[in-house]
């Protein structure tokens, strides 16, 4: 873990060596100036204070002493500023470059990857994992400063008086030891408390989100008891941590204080024998007090390392995920005129599970075909293959006779549009959501919206087409969202339009009007995945999909009469609706 962590840090630093180097330089200056400050203080006591109070020092010497104190203070401040600024820069640059890389990777990975991982996980890679991987970098220059400080201070002590240095060396390292024990012990109740906070938060979320159920079932008292139990657990853990803190924290001020007291005892004897000067003694006191701090925090230096390793490994998983979709080889366009769709012996599996098996189908140019099938029959996968969101494992998908693997991505998107059941809207105005990267005029947009039966409700919104929807905007109902998503497809005047259960949340009256309009005004090959009989019945032809293959096809009425499985699916829907 440790070696791996160091290697990871090394590789990160290697990407931004300059700011990191400057930060470490600043740290060294700071450490030197801090120890230098105590030396200056000692000299000032000897050369200025002691003789000065007897009136034996010139004003020039006094001024020089004061100036030296200020100068050393300035250098130290400069060191701090340099270190902090450039350490911050190193961290921010690392985050930016990692984030760019993760997001680029998301764009290159197949949609199946997105489907296989929950949104929260993908967001965590781009945020929390990057923070975890890089947080260890920011304090590194500071850790360097701490180590240098200890080294410089030790040298200064030994050079001035090895005898007194011995006192420091025998007492002060105890701080590091105490701290190690303390951190190890307090970590336990604290991390348990954090887990308990998680428990409490889960109960609060569940209970408050489910307030309606809690209330209707009269479970308030039980819920409060459940919550109180978690709150008690937090209190107990935190009190346990508090007891440890009470025992250890005062040690960290008591030990250096005791060290200074011993130092004064022995030091005054050393001064009396002439081994050291008064100034030396003052410098020693100062150094002792300075050392107490770095000795304590040195344990923190790489405490973030395990977290960084975990974060880095999660990111590595994203970077190492194989890319399965190759860009189109020849980048052809689609032929002019109405386009037929043909699927030839296509098989596709999701990991070990076959989803489509040797499936073939033909849709004539400008024909309307409905695809019907029970849940899990492969309908959505089929639509994804039709618009090349994935490539088949075997067989081919052709539109206008051209294998999709040879069609230029941009041109494919121009001619073939798909509308999903889950209609995602961007956090921008409705107009932008419809026109999206096309050159559609306002008139085109409203025409598309009219066809999608969205124009009227959009105009009734507070800002009409300029109403902002999505994350920070107005929340549309599921049916309204689906209609906007449909308009987004229609505005592109696609020659092949695929609706994957795209009107499932739309009111049946409106849905009927939509389909009616599509049939009358849109010249496109239309493939509709649907449940509702009213939708299915509009199609020229119905394909029944089951277990990853087409099991029947024909006109709705014929299938209804001849195919019991089909009748069962369709009837189930009727009974639900009727």
């Amino acid at each position, binding site marked *: 873990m440790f070696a791996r962590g160091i290697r990871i840090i090394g590789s990160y630093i290697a990407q931004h060596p300059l700011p990191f180097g400057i930060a470490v330089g600043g740290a060294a200056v700071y450490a030197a100036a801090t120890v230098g400050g105590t030396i200056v203080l000692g000299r000032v006591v000897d050369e200025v204070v002691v003789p000065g109070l007897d009136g034996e020092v010139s004003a020039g010497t006094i001024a020089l002493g004061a100036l030296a104190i200020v100068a050393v203070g300035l250098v130290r401040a400069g060191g701090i500023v340099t270190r902090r600024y450039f350490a*911050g820069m190193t961290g921010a640059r690392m985050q930016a470059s990692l984030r760019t890389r993760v997001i680029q990777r998301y764009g290159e990975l197949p949609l199946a990857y997105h489907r296989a991982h929950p949104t929260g996980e993908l967001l965590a890679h781009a945020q929390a994992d990057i923070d975890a991987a890089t947080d260890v970098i920011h304090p590194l220059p500071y850790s360097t400063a701490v180590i240098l400080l200890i080294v410089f201070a030790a040298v200064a002590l030994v050079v001035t008086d090895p005898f007194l240095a011995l006192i420091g060396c025998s007492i002060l390292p105890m701080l590091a030891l105490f701290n190690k024990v303390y951190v190890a012990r307090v970590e336990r109740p604290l991390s348990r408390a954090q887990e308990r906070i998680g428990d409490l938060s889960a109960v609060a979320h569940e209970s408050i989100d489910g307030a309606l159920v809690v209330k209707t079932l009269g479970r308030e008292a039980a819920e409060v008891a459940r919550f109180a139990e978690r709150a008690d657990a937090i209190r107990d853990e935190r009190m346990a941590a508090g007891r440890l803190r009470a025992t250890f924290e005062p040690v960290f001020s008591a030990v250096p204080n005791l060290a200074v007291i011993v130092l004064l005892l022995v030091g005054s004897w050393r001064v009396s024998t002439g081994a050291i000067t008064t100034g030396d003694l003052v410098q020693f006191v100062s150094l002792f007090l300075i050392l107490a701090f770095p000795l304590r925090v040195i344990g923190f230096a790489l405490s973030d390392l395990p977290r960084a390793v975990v974060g880095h490994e999660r990111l590595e998983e994203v970077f190492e995920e194989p890319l399965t979709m190759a860009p189109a080889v020849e980048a052809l366009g689609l032929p002019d005129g109405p386009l037929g769709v043909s699927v030839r012996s296509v098989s596709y599996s999701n990991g070990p599970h076959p989803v489509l098996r040797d499936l073939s189908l033909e849709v004539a140019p400008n024909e309307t075909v409905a695809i019907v099938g029970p849940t899990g029959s492969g309908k959505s996968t089929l639509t994804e293959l039709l618009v090349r969101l994935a490539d088949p494992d075997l067989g081919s998908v052709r539109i206008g006779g051209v294998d999709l693997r040879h069609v230029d991505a941009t041109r494919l998107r121009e001619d073939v549009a798909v509308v999903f059941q889950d209609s995602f809207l961007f956090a921008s105005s409705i107009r932008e959501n419809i026109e999206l990267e096309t050159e559609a005029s306002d008139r085109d947009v409203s025409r598309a919206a009219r066809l999608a039966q969205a124009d009227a409700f959009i105009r009734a919104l507070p800002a009409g087409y300029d109403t902002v929807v999505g994350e920070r905007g107005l929340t549309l109902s599921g049916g309204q969202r689906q209609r906007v998503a449909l308009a987004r497809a229609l505005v592109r005047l696609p020659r092949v339009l695929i609706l994957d259960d795209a009107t499932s949340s739309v009111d049946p009256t409106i849905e009927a009007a939509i389909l009616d309009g599509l049939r009358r005004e849109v010249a496109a090959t239309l493939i509709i995945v649907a449940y509702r009989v009213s939708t299915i019945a509009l199609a020229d032809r119905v394909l029944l999909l089951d277990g990853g293959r087409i099991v029947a096809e024909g006109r709705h009425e014929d299938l209804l009469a001849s195919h019991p499985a089909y009748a069962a699916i369709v009837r189930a829907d009727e009974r639900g609706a009727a």
Partner: protein
Amino acid sequence: MTPPHRSEEALALARAEEVAPPSTLDGGPPTEPPRAEERSVRVEGAWHVLRRGLRESPELRAGLGFTVILALANAIGRLILPVLIGFTLDRGLLGPEGFRPGLVASACAVAAIVVAGVYVAGRAAYIRLVRASETALRNLRVRAFAHIHDLSIAEQTAEKRGAFVARVTADVDILGQFMEWGAISWITSGILMAGTAVLMFVYSWQLALLTLVIVAPIAFVMRVLQRGMLAAYERVRARIGETLSAVSESVMGAAVIRAYGLDRRVEVRLGGAIRRQYEAQMNANRYQATIFPIGDLFGAVATAAVVAVGVTFGADSGLTVGGLVAFLFLVAMFVDPLSELSETFDMTQSAIAGWRKVLGVLDLPVELVEPDPGRSVSAGPLSIRAEGVEFAYRDGGGPVLRGIDVEVPAGGHVAIVGETGCGKTTFAKLLCRLADPSSGRIVLGEVDLREISREARRRAVLMVPQDGFLFDTTIRENVRFGRAGAEDRDVEAAFASLDLDGWLGGLPEGLDTNAGERGEALSVGERQLVALARAQLASPECLILDEATSAVDPQTERIIAEALGRLSRGRTTLSIAHRLSTAESADSVLVFDRGKIVERGAHSELIERGGVYAALYRSWLGEVAEQVAS
């Protein structure tokens, strides 16, 4: 949220800094700066919150006392050193009698005893203060949570619920951090600075004044920089939010982005967001870098001035070497807490803002007062009647329901249809007293609903909400919540009587299948089935069914419809109907439109009348019927 070891580290660093010598050390991560809304808390407001908070949590008064003891012990422990140094130099070393080992030894012994005493006293005080503050936090949390459940939920939106969760979690946690660090820091730093100042005046009032004059501007400079830093961090936070929403858009919209070839758009947006976040971070970084050595720098200037002035004029006023050296250490002790206090200031603002929000929850009036003692209702089937019911939300927006008069006879079944937002769900909530009407009344079995005791009401009326929310436990436990003390066989019987055995058998672990968070391990339809079984177990006289609008696969849909039929048999039932079959099978149908009943009557009558319902019905079913017929 800062993980515990981080705040622990911060605490450790802050504490360690307290023992820092004449030269200040920097270090320790900055505390999370508060948000704009939190900064707007004015000082007067803060005092009010503080007084109010202390009233709500009397435990904190005791905690305050222990904190003062801790602070006094801490101040004594720290001030003893400079005094000892001065004493040793002047009396034990440089005095007219030269080196006096006996005197130095006894002085050191006394100091060591004081340090040990301070340790013991500090430890005892700290343990008690943690106990007091943790108890206070725990009680505050639980009270706020209980209060939230007492509130009427008719008006609760998803955002409000999210805010409530934050009140009893994050806000109380911030308050906790403050109590165990910020508040202590105020008191310890205050007492230490006061003690240091007094001691400085004892050694030399002239030098003390000089120090105060030089050091005073720190407070000002720090505040200015701190404000700038806060604003800069606010921008960073906003930029991080933008990056996050750009990333989340690209992830959630992955299918649309690919299907419509929007990669460029995403790249531009994300690239811009990442760049702006970096720039904002670097801007904040400038403040971060400069703010730290400020105290240090002022300390150096003050030290230099004290040396120069002390040496030049001190001898005349009787200043000794020991006195001056002690004074130099005191200057550092005085400057040190200033920068820490400046950070504490911001933390205090966040904590006060959080505290205010938590107290704000306790201030929300409980609108539904349960009658004491409440009346009971007669056993057997009950009628429900709404008389001239109106309802408007407290936060304005006009009436949602107007002039509603409805009677559901005992054992009868009424269905309500209408578009989303017509007030039908609100009406359903009034019927089980999740809110009270603004005017008019609801009468259950001839008794005003407001006069019926909580228990009697719950036995009599049950609402089955449409969202099918389940708790994160087994299906068995979820159903058991329907009736306290129900046995396993009662749970099984509930499923059996709704004919759900077959469905249950198809689940991997049957009744022991876990429902997952919010029930999300089950499908929407399955969640509804569990909710129906729960209602069956509760077995109320009156059933308020709020049907789900979301799409459910046809098979499950069929099972739900049958279970619903069985559940409502023999009970007074009011359904918010989204299924046509529900409306059709009801004794009468009410059509709601913008908070009013626009049509009422039996299904067949309404069809004949040819009004709103008939049109709705035609569009609803028309095409289906047509197709099936052809």
